[in-house]
């Protein structure tokens, strides 16, 4: 997603170059649950990595271990080349935004943001200046004197972001900061977090189970699956070239269409498509995106239209192949007009590489 730098916000007093983060072979078990099962994760300086995965896959655990709020059973953590594995949370210099509202209720917005600076012994004038700048950065310069309960949920999370960034943290950590907000605010705020993050250049780890959110703001998305990282890649690559079946099925919608793999290519319906590394050999199921399937009415086609759903600019058609496989196709609404329920159609598949998984 492209990021526009808005000039109406005052730039922060310092732009940190960002530090590299290295998490190696992290393990954590709770009783019999393997919350983290040998997680390796590397963040480049200034990069924003989003951890994405289903509930309970260990995202929060990974983040909390990086923050020092949870101990690991094994593995190491280093930031900017400094080993932090056994450093307590309050010495790690990480700014954190929580899912739950976490502003200190007894302090004003300004004092909340200045809290970390006060602990670092900065002068009063200095603190107020910096906290004010940070509040301007998140667009809340006018709300300095308010208390947390006088702010909306979105505003509270903005303040929490300003508070986390005020200390110029080595790493910024966000654990589903938007999940308590309603859809519209969520989109607004996620773009804003992205803007602020690239303004200040802090290396950032963002955790979410919302894939749209992840794909929209990340430099790279790491997909987690029961305590490990299945794949970490830029959003577009993750979407077009999933490395595992789990990634292919978890990110975006995928059809599963019978396929026959033969070396570097696979035959799917009538098309011959290149296969992605990691594909199964022989007979399998190709994971095909709905937008890679095009449909045209054809008396002699091999599929039947089951239903057509109008979604605005695009429509989604559900079809059955003659062998009974259900296939979804996404097409321009203008083109969907020609489809009638029960009519015969011909499918074409865009010749982009596909992942074929065992049936």
């Amino acid at each position, binding site marked *: 997603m492209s990021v526009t730098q808005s000039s109406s916000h005052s730039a922060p007093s310092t732009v940190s170059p960002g530090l590299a983060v290295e998490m190696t072979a992290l393990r954590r078990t709770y009783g019999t649950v393997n919350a983290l099962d040998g997680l390796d994760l590397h963040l480049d300086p200034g990069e924003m990595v989003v951890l994405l995965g289903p509930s309970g896959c260990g995202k929060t655990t990974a983040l909390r271990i990086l923050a020092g709020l949870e101990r690991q059973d094994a593995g190491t953590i280093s930031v900017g080349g400094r080993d932090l594995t056994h450093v307590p949370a*309050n010495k790690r210099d*990480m700014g954190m935004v929580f899912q*739950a509202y*976490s502003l*200190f209720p*007894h302090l004003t917005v300004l004092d909340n943001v200045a*809290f970390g600076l006060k*602990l670092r012994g900065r002068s009063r004038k200095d603190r107020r200046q910096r906290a004010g700048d940070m509040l301007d950065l998140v667009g809340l310069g006018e709300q300095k004197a308010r208390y947390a309960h006088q702010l909306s949920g979105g505003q509270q999370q903005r303040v929490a972001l300003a508070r986390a960034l005020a200390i110029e943290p080595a790493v910024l950590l966000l654990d589903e900061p938007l999940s308590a907000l309603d859809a519209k605010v969520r989109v607004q705020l996620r773009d804003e977090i992205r803007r602020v993050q690239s303004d200040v250049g802090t290396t950032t780890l963002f955790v979410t189970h919302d894939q749209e959110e992840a794909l929209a703001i990340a430099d790279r998305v790491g997909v987690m699956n029961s305590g490990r990282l299945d794949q970490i890649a830029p959003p577009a690559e993750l979407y077009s070239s999933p490395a595992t079946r789990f990634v292919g099925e978890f990110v975006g919608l995928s059809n599963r269409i019978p396929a026959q793999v033969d070396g570097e290519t696979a035959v799917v319906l009538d098309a011959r498509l290149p296969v992605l590394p990691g594909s199964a050999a022989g007979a399998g199921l190709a994971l095909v995106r709905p937008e890679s399937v095009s449909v045209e009415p054809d008396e002699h086609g091999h599929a039947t239209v089951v239903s057509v759903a109008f979604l605005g600019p695009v429509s989604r058609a559900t079809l059955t192949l003659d062998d009974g496989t259900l296939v979804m196709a996404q097409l321009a609404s203008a083109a969907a007009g020609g489809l009638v329920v029960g009519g015969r159609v011909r499918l074409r598949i865009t010749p982009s590489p596909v992942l074929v998984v065992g049936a």
Partner: protein
Amino acid sequence: MIGAWVWRVSRWLLLLAFAAFFLLPLVALLDFSTTIPRTGERTGAAWQSLLEDPQMTQAIKTSLLLALFTVIGMVVLLVPTMIWVKLRVPRASRLVEFLCLLPLTIPALVVVVGIKNVYAWVTYLIGDSALTLTFIYVVLVLPYAYRSIDAALSSIDAGTLSEAARSLGAGWFTVITRVITPNIWPGVLGGAFISVALVLGEYTVSSLLNYETLPVVIVLLSKSDAPQSMAASLASILFAAALLVVLSFLDRRRRTTVRK
């Protein structure tokens, strides 16, 4: 219409009944403490003696100091412990609750008998003063203070607040004193008030251990100088009530500044 009228009248009657129930004894105390028993003349002598009779002033001083020390002891002991347990060893919270509520189940008499031997050592080590009662009183007020502080602690998200503070660089001492405690202050104030009220009215332990606290002296005097003991009773009740008003006022002011 008539229903509403009846409702309003009965509400007033109820209110009056309660007021009479609570106020009549106080009025009686006031009346009795300002009357010379034989002649029925009005006099302020009993009230004046509260400030002049050395036994009485000494007892008042002792009880007030005891209340102060008990509150300090309770706050210093209980607040950090409860926060620590809540944040760091939640498994132990049941145990702490049990320990804190224990004094409630043990009659004061038993406490005194059990503690007499210990007190021989206490007086041997730090001298024989009524203020040594502080140790017992801190234990006696635990159940009430615990309840009050526990309610306040449960009403905030202590875990998230402390984690936020720690990630900003706060050590545990800072988390307890500057992040959690300010947010449970109403509960602490409530606990403190109950402690004061309890200490000002505690008779069994102090009398059995032969210390002259206010309630003990009031009972002593009721045999020789009834009006003076009545005046002292009324004064201590009024003091506690005034304290309650001040505390709730403080609390309300806090909330309104927060809400401004």
